[in-house]
């Protein structure tokens, strides 16, 4: 396993940012999800060695997160969320400079910088100063600097934020190419759930500093079945009885009732309860849950 963390605790003063997070992640692309303040960025910063956990331990690519941060940073690429660059440098110098700082020999870093910029599609503008780049170009440049030293693991923090649809598709294509066709693990932290669904097979969901769910997306979706219902009659008792049976209910604006049932739930129960409460079931369909449903279920929001 390239990412293993165990019982990580971290506080910002009195605020608990991470509260006993343990992860053991497989190869491939992994999505890191959570609402604002869930602890995603703190977790990435701890894994990179920017922050030292108050409690807990972990290893990234076999390097200890508390004592071997330099080893981690040599073999890990990091694409930060914010705009970040070194002014007055052109893109080639910028990328090669960061390659050199990773420990690459100077000539090799320059050669590799050209390759990385070609790869992300900045070959035409690689001699332009980075401060003249558009938002989309800066995102690509950040990806180029993250891969210039050929890392074994890449942390991508909101890689598609601020991009237009075409730019977003292109960045996602690059991420998928890196993670699927090469032996490079990618951890993507994002608010955009369709991006995660498209690029990742495995997901980690954090909520209030704790691990809310982790696993393969396809398997997590199977844990709870989703049914779509339309009913007529006195619904209050019907709802109460479903909730007593650990079902989670969600009503849409067009009167559709979404019911997430717990594992092993027998769908005959719907008809039994409806009969008991004199409620007519006018529409009953077993539906496919999405990552959005899974996320909402894990963090407890509609």
């Amino acid at each position, binding site marked *: 396993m390239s990412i293993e963390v165990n019982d990580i605790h971290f506080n910002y003063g009195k605020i608990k940012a991470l509260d006993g997070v343990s992860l053991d992640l497989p190869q491939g692309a992994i999505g890191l999800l959570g609402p604002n303040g869930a602890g995603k960025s703190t977790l990435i910063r701890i894994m990179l060695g920017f922050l030292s956990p108050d409690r807990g331990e972990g290893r990234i690519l076999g390097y200890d997160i508390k004592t071997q941060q330099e080893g981690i940073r040599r073999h890990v690429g990091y694409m930060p969320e914010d705009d970040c660059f070194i002014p007055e440098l052109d893109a080639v110098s910028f990328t090669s*400079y960061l390659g050199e700082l990773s420990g690459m020999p100077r000539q090799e870093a320059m050669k590799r910088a050209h390759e990385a910029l070609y790869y992300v599609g900045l070959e035409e503008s690689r001699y332009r100063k980075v401060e003249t780049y558009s938002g989309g170009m800066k995102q690509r440049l950040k990806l180029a600097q993250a891969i210039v030293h050929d890392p074994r693991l890449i942390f991508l923090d909101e890689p598609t934020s601020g991009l237009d649809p075409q730019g977003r598709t292109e960045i996602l294509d690059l991420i998928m*190419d890196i993670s699927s066709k090469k032996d490079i693990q990618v951890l993507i932290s994002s608010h955009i759930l369709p991006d995660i669904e498209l690029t990742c097979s495995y997901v980690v969901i954090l909520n209030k500093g704790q691990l809310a769910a982790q696993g393969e997306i396809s398997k997590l979706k199977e844990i709870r079945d989703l049914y779509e219902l339309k009913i007529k009659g006195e619904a209050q008792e019907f709802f109460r009885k479903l909730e007593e049976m650990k079902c989670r209910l969600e009503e849409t604006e067009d009167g559709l009732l979404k019911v997430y049932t717990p594992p092993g739930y027998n769908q005959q129960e719907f008809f039994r309860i409806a009969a008991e409460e004199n409620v007519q079931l006018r529409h009953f369909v077993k539906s496919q849950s999405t990552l959005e449903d899974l996320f909402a279920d894990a963090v407890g929001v509609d």
Partner: protein
Amino acid sequence: MTIKEKGYTHWDGEFQDKKFPWWPITRYGIKLTFRKKFFKLFFPASFLLAVFFLAGIYISERLDDFKSMFGESVPSLQIDPAYFKTYLAGGFLLFIMLIMVIFCGSGLISDDLKHNALQLYFSRPLKKRDYFLGKTAVIVFFLFLLTLVPGFVFIIMKMIFAGSFKFFLSYPWLPLSVIAYSVLVTAFFSFYTLFLSSLNKSRLFVAILIFGIYFGSEILRAIFYENFHNHHFSLLSISANIQQVGAVIFNQKTPYPIHWILSLLVLTAFCILAGFVLKKKVKGVEIVK
């Protein structure tokens, strides 16, 4: 060529365990300083004072020729440690050094803060120490060009013009004084510049601070001295403290009648404080509580 055509390729080289991982930071810092438009004008001009003093050394060895040309009215020119002190610890060179650090140092940290670049540095296998060493070495490079290099050039040229080692044998400790003073003044200006550069994201504001605090401290000294006639107020002035210690290093009379150790303590205390603030200010991540 798009991603579909090219694809990602692995790098088949090997990482180096560099002895000086901070060197790329220094190299790029120097390179970027030379790209500044006005610096290209200032840099050669900053050596005019050294050329003037070098001419003085040449003239001192050719006084007899000048006397034959202009008569006995030509004043004698003594090349001794005081001459070196006049160049190295003089107010004009300190002013040139101040302009030099404004060009090469004001943006060293403030630009990184402004453009969120610290996280790029610290996501690399760099320690905070390497980052500071890399940035400091940029200032050291330019200030040594104004202090250490001319100091040694003066000694060597004096011996070449004289055609003997007499000067060196008369003052064998002078090279050490040049080294000690250059290190002292460079170390102080490095801490001073990096400290101020870490306080604000605007390079221009930092430049104003570098200039303002240096001259403000001298104005403050003059105001207090005029009112209280106490020489201890010279401890408030950056240039006065440097000149006090500089005079001792070159075995000359101090310009103010107070103990030079006090000036050294003021400069050292400032450097320690600056180091402490720098350590606190420069972080890989900005934590918003």
